[in-house]
C-alpha cells in the first residue's frame, strides 16, 4: 500500500464510551479500496461499535472517520455513501423483494428505469431474480440474507459494511455464503468491511484482518501474518490453537531472544513483538509445529496423557514436568505412524525458529 493512495476508510483515534464502559479505546485503522477487511474479535470487543460508527448509527466520543479523505463522522447515516448488511437482515416486511432492493436507489432519486435495471442486476447477482415479487417473510433465511446483500449493494456504496451477516445461518449455508460473498466482492470491486467473531470465517475470506479485544485493535495483517506472527498472547490464543510455555528472557539480539525454559534448557525464539526491557514472557508454538520423539531424543521431557485420532491428523496431549499441557498435532501420512500410547514418556522437540516469544 502506498502512503499517497486514498484510503477507502481511515479511522483516526476513534473512541466510544457508553457511560463508564469504554467500548472503543483510541482506535486507528486504514482500510484500502477494494479490500475485504475483517474486524475479528470476541463479543464485546468493540467491533460492532466500530462498524456502527462507520455506518453512522453511533457517534464517536472522540476521533475522526474519513471516507476517501472526506470526514464523515459528523454526517448522519443517510448522507454517507456506505451501506450495511444487518445481522438480522432488517428487510422491510411490507415491501416485496424488488421494492426492498430498490429502496436505497429510490431515496437517492435515481431515475425509475435505472432503478428497475439495477434492481434486477442486483437480484441476479445474488441468484434471486425469480423471487422479486415475493415478500421477505416468504423466503428462507439464506434467501433473506441474499436479499439484504442485494439491497445494500444496489445503490453502489463506496464501502459495504457487513455485521456478522452469516451468524444466523446454519453451517452448510454459511460455508457456501462465504464463497459467494468473496465472489461478489471481487465482482463488484466494492470495499467490504466484515465483522465476525468466527475466526475461520475471517481467515478464509479476508484480505486483511484486524483482531480486536477490549476496545482495542490488537493486530492488523493478512491471515498468514496473524496466524504465524501474532503480536501478543491474546492474538495467538484467539486465532487458531497454540501452546504457551512460560520462559525467562536471557537476552534479545536483533529480534531473536534467548530464553530459559523451566527445565533449564535454552531456546532461541523470534521476538519482534517484544519490548526490550521485559524479563519474562511466554513462548507460543502452534500444535502442528511441535514434534514428538522417543524419550532418548533431545527435547523437553513429558508424558502422553491423551491420544486422539482425527482422520487427517493425530492429536497428542503431553504433560510436561511443570504440569503445563501441550497439544501436538501430527499429520497421518504414508510414513510410520507417529502413534504414542497414553502414559508413555516422550520428548517434545521444538525446531529452531518455530517458537515465538510473546507477552500479554
Amino acid at each position, binding site marked *: 500500500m502506498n502512503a499517497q493512495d486514498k484510503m477507502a476508510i481511515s479511522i483516526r483515534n476513534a473512541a466510544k464510551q457508553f457511560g463508564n464502559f469504554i467500548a472503543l479505546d483510541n482506535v486507528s485503522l486504514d482500510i484500502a479500496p477494494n479490500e475485504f477487511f475483517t474486524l475479528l474479535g470476541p463479543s464485546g470487543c468493540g467491533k460492532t461499535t466500530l462498524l456502527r460508527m462507520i455506518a453512522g448509527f453511533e457517534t464517536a466520543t472522540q476521533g475522526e472517520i474519513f471516507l476517501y479523505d472526506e470526514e464523515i463522522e459528523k454526517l448522519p447515516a443517510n448522507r454517507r455513501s456506505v451501506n450495511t448488511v444487518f445481522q438480522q437482515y432488517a428487510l422491510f416486511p411490507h415491501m416485496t423483494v424488488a421494492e426492498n432492493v430498490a429502496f436505497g436507489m429510490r*431515496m437517492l432519486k435515481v431515475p425509475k428505469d435505472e432503478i428497475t435495471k439495477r434492481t434486477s442486476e442486483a437480484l441476479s447477482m445474488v441468484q434471486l431474480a425469480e423471487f422479486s415479487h415475493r415478500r421477505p417473510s416468504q423466503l428462507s433465511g439464506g434467501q433473506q440474507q441474499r436479499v439484504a446483500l442485494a439491497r445494500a449493494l444496489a445503490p453502489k456504496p463506496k464501502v459495504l459494511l457487513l455485521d456478522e451477516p452469516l451468524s444466523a445461518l446454519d453451517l452448510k449455508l454459511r460455508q457456501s455464503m462465504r464463497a459467494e460473498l468473496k465472489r461478489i466482492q471481487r465482482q463488484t470491486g466494492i470495499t467490504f468491511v466484515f465483522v465476525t467473531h468466527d475466526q475461520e470465517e475471517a481467515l478464509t475470506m479476508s484480505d486483511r484482518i484486524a483482531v480486536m479485544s477490549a476496545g482495542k485493535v490488537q493486530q492488523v495483517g493478512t491471515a498468514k501474518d496473524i496466524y504465524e506472527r501474532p503480536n501478543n498472547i491474546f492474538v495467538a490464543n484467539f486465532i487458531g490453537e497454540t501452546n504457551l510455555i512460560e520462559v525467562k528472557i536471557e537476552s534479545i539480539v536483533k529480534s531473536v531472544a534467548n530464553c530459559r525454559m523451566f527445565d533449564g534448557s535454552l531456546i532461541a525464539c523470534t521476538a519482534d513483538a517484544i519490548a526490550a526491557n521485559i524479563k519474562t514472557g511466554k513462548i507460543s508454538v502452534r500444535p502442528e509445529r511441535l514434534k514428538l520423539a522417543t524419550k532418548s531424543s533431545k527435547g523437553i521431557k513429558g508424558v502422553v496423557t491423551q491420544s486422539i485420532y482425527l482422520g487427517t491428523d493425530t492429536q497428542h496431549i503431553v504433560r510436561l514436568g511443570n504440569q503445563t499441557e501441550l497439544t501436538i498435532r501430527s499429520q497421518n501420512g504414508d510414513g510410520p505412524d507417529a502413534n504414542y500410547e497414553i502414559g508413555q514418556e516422550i520428548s517434545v522437540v521444538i525446531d529452531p525458529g518455530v517458537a515465538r516469544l510473546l507477552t500479554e
Partner: protein
Amino acid sequence: MAAHFNLNANSSKPSQTIAKDQAYQLLPAVLLICLFVVLPLCLIAIFSFLKPGTYGGVEWVFSAGSYVQFLFEQDFLTENLVFSANYLSIFFNSFVLAITATVLCLIIGFPTAYFIATRPERTRNIWLFAITVPYWVNLLIRTVAMLFIIRDQGPINSILIATGLISEPIRFAYTNFAIGLGLFYSYLPFMVLPIYAAIERLDFSLVEAAHDLYATRRSTLWNIIIPVVKPGIIAGCLLVFIPSLGSFIAPDILGGGKNLMIGNLIALQFQGSRNWPFGAAVAVILLTLVLSILLFFAMRSAKEARK
C-alpha cells in the same frame, strides 16, 4: 372479525379447532353474550319494525314506518311524504365530529405513542401509567370539568380577557368544537395504546436500515414506520371512531343538547319522545353503518395478509 384487527402486525391467523373440554370454558362467556348482547340486539331489530305505543313501548303490529320516518316527513296538510334531511344531517354531523375526534387523536396520539415506545424499558410503564391517570376519574365529571374550563366565564376566556387579547369571551362551550374536543379527550388513550403496542414491537433495525439506505427521518416515517405499524393505527382509529360516533355524554354536556349526535337522538326517542321503534331503527341504522366500516377494514386486512 376481531382477529383481523389484531395489534400484532406479524401475527399469523391459524384456524384452530376448539376441543370439547375447552368449549366448556367458553360457556359462561357465551351465555352472557347471548343474554346481554344478542338478545337485546334482536329485540332492537324487532322493535324497529313495530308501531310505537302511545305512552312509550311498542304495539305488536308490523310497520316499516320508523325507517320511513328517518328519511321522510309527513306533510301536515296534504299527508304526503316529503323527503327530509333532518335526521340525515344529524348522522352527517356525527360522522364529521367522530372523524374530527379520530384525526385529532391520531395527530396527538401517534407522537405520544412513539415517544413512550422509544423510552428505556423501565420508564415506559411510568409513561403508560401517566396516560391512564385521568381516566380514573369518571367520564361525566371529566366532561363537566371541561365545560367549566371552556365556558364563557371559564379560565381560558378569563385569561384571554385579562391579558387584553380579546374583549368579548370566545364562544367555545355548546359548539361542535366543544363536542369534538370532548370526544378527542375521552378516547385519546384508545388511540395511544394500540399504536404504542405496534411501535413497541417495531424492529428498530428497520429504521436504521432505512437511514442507511439514504432515507431522511421524514421519509423513514412515511415509508417504513407508518406502513409497518399500520395495523395499530387502524385499530386505534376504529377504537376512537366507533364509540365517538355513538357518543352520548360529550354532545349532551358540551353541546348543550342542541348539537345532537346519533347517541343523543337514540336516547331522546327512548326517553323524551317515547318513540321506541324509531329509536330502535336509528340504532339499527347506526349498527349497520359501523359493521360495514368494520367489514371493509377486515376484508382489506385479510386481502393484504394474503398478498
